[in-house]
């Protein structure tokens, strides 16, 4: 950010974004294996950038719903990857060679370390072999009312303190002793000494220290494979954006739960609004403002409780969209590219999400009517989606190609479209994913 010619604060959002795009196109930390790899990398990134800017690229770019399917292709599963960090490397490398051309590719995603997860438990997550069958292809989020209805004020009083002393012990037996931590806002460092005299608290830190070798191995492994993939000429879409989601989901997913937050919409709407406004400000101040230059400016934001069936248009307008929109605007203002991932169906919502700057947001849709999406927001936002996951996973190659062709016909005209799946297809056959690439090349040339 500091190496730009013009003062960052004085730049328009488009200028900031151009800087970030330049960095995406010319990654200083990647050593390409060949000039060919570098050329392909630039072509691929350019394809995405043009689509994002609602311009026509050479052809429709593809965001393959690969997920962790290479693991299954290589005879392994999520459980294997959780314990054998190197195994993923071998398989992913082979998969990449076997697959051929792709517009983007990533290393294993969301694969926690098995050994660390065994120790640092979480009631919010079930993992293969840890609450789920060993061969489960995905983890399972366990919702609950982890934050009580009367704790909004406590959270807003000091959110990090609340997180560490209330939520962590409540959602993880490993962190149970943190409930005995003194308030972390004390201006004296001696509270930490007092805390470290508690054998339970000490044990937490000692265990985390003891596991650091494992943690480093795991982090290095993930970095290595992604560096390798980049060097082969495959850009990343998910690389390095800030972690963000809708403020409504922040409270609805991990804190109050679906039941809790829907009760709050009726029983204490003002509190909920105050908390969402607060969370929004916090996210902008700590995670968005002055966000560093990273490998890609695209920020995927999974959305949950605002979909067509979860609330009415009126509720969406009152509770969900205003803070999500404000968050997107803050990202845009930093030159970032928010990519809300609308899980479920957003067909009703389309008319409500048009009030963002042209080409600022990229919408990734799951079950939304894409023809309608193109019609309503196609002039404003690049759209991504949405070959049904069922077809990608279980359909024939021809069915996949047909679905892609239809989508391209409906959405590609004039640019601003990325062909993608409705969700990650974790056990998708390689042929079906290759069929998506083929379809883009066959039907998606501008």
């Amino acid at each position: 950010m500091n190496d730009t010619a013009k003062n960052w604060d004085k730049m328009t959002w488009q200028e900031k974004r151009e800087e970030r795009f330049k960095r995406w196109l010319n990654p200083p930390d990647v050593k390409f294996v060949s000039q060919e790899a570098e050329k392909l990398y630039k072509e691929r990134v350019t394809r995405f950038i043009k689509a994002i800017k609602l311009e026509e690229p050479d052809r429709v770019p593809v965001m393959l719903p690969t997920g962790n399917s290479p693991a299954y292709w290589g005879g392994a599963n999520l459980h294997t990857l959780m314990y054998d960090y190197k195994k993923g490397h071998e398989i992913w490398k082979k998969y990449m060679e076997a697959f051929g051309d792709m517009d983007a590719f990533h290393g294993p995603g969301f694969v926690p370390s098995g050994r660390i997860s065994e120790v640092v438990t979480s009631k919010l997550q079930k993992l293969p072999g840890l609450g789920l069958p060993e061969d489960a292809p995905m983890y399972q989020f366990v919702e609950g009312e982890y934050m009580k209805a009367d704790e909004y004020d406590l959270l807003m009083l000091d959110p990090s303190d609340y997180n560490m002393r209330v939520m962590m012990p409540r959602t993880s037996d490993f962190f149970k002793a943190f409930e005995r931590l003194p308030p972390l806002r004390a201006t004296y460092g001696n509270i930490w000494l007092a805390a470290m005299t508690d054998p339970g608290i000490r044990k937490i830190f000692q265990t985390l220290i003891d596991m650091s070798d494992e943690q480093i191995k795991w982090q290095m492994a993930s970095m290595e494979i992604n560096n390798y993939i980049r060097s082969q000429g495959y850009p990343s879409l998910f690389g390095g954006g800030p972690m963000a989601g809708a403020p409504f989901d922040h409270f609805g997913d991990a804190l109050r739960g679906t039941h809790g937050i829907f009760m709050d919409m009726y029983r204490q709407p003002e509190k909920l609004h105050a908390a969402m406004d607060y969370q929004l400000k916090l996210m902008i101040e700590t995670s968005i403002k002055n966000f560093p230059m990273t490998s890609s400016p695209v920020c995927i934001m999974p959305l949950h409780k605002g979909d067509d069936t979860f609330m009415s248009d009126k509720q969406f307008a009152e509770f969900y969209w205003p803070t999500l929109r404000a968050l997107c605007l803050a990202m845009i203002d930093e030159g970032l590219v928010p990519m809300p991932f609308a899980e479920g169906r957003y067909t009703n919502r389309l008319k409500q999400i048009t009030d963002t700057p042209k080409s600022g947001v990229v919408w990734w849709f799951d079950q939304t009517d894409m023809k309608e999406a193109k019609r309503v927001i196609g002039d404003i936002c690049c759209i991504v989606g949405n070959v049904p996951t069922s077809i990608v996973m279980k359909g024939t190659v021809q069915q996949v190609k047909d679905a892609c062709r239809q989508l391209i016909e409906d959405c590609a005209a004039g640019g601003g479209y990325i062909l993608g799946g409705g969700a990650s297809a974790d056990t998708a056959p390689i042929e079906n994913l290759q069929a998506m690439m083929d379809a883009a090349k066959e039907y998606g040339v501008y």
Partner: protein
Amino acid sequence: MAKEWADMTWEEKREERFKQWLSPGIKFDSPEAERLYKERVTRFTKAIKLEKPDRVPVAIPVQYLPAVYAGYDLGTVMNDYGKLKEAWLKFLNDFDADSFLPPSLVFPAKVLEMIDYKIQKWPGHGLPDDAPSHQFVEGEYMLASEYDALINDPADYLLRHFLPRSAGVFKPFEKLAPLTPFVAIPVGYVAQFADPEIRKTYETLFDAAQEAVKWAMAVGEIGQIGLSAGFPNIWGGMSQAPFDMVGDFLRGTHGIMMDMFKRPDKLHEAMARLVPVAVSEAVGSANASGCPIIFIPLHKGTGGFMSNKQFEEFYWPTFKEVMMGLVNEGLVPMPFAEGNYEPRLEIIKDMPRSSTIWFFEHMDMAKAKKILNHTCIAGNVPVTMMVTGKPAEVKERCRQLIEVCAPGSGYILTAGAWMDMGNHENLRAMMEAAKEYGVY
């Protein structure tokens, strides 16, 4: 409790806390010790409630003096907890008093060195070996541009920005990621431990804590012995005026005085943010200690530091809010007005009847008694006289103070500040005066 805590008036809550203070559930050395303990606590609670006790209570004005009295000095007892205990117990044994303070502010030197504590100097560490007191090291530990970060997420700010500047051991915490985006995702929290410097921080804290336990056990034992012998603790917790929270530790005097002109809105916002933080902290420590008196040393609002207009705009409103927050929890704020609060009397009288103990350093006590006639006041034999004067002088000054302040109750006899050295016979003179002249 028959009535729910939340439904009680502040007076009812306070009565509950007074009851707990009166019967601390410990084993006294003798029935006599228990009787004396209750007499002493009652003396204070009556003075607070503006009821007449048997005589004027005395808050014995000592800080580090027991070290010198036992033939050691502060540096010695900061390094040797055995000697620390020996000195404080000797003092306990040798002096009659209405209260006893364990040496919880005589910090362990080894621990401070291990964590490379930067905001205090102590004997042998920045001060001469025989220095009688510690020295606070003010600085601009929080930058002017960091108000928003503090306001948005105090724990996060203090952890990642302030602590690394206040002690060397916490320097690596500068590299920590914000805590809140990882709500309920432990993986985010675990990631920090891959950094060897951060691991080192925790390892050093482990060692320092082991040392701190030895010290804390000695202090705790001294406190228990004092209680068992019949001497109540009159210091149940500590709090601060929000202006001082920002001015002392974070921005420093220079910083905050500039902020009053350059960014008054941010300063106001930050102080408002710190009110509930200050209240909740004091409530926690009072619950743990069993004594409801919250000691609040005041610094930057004193006469000479700002005008009455500035005091009314910047200092008093949030400070009053903190005190009211304490009062509403049944606690008794005891602001210690260091410096000269005479210009502030008309402003600070705006508190509920009998809710507060105002402890004054430099003050025309007759004037204070007149203007604050609805609240308990404490003070103010000059500490210069306590340290260097003769017992007869001290006794005479105490007599004058009792004559002016004691009528109708609401007075605690003490000095204008605490003694770290000087003529200990003056302490005996003060007690004598209370007994001789202070009987109601």
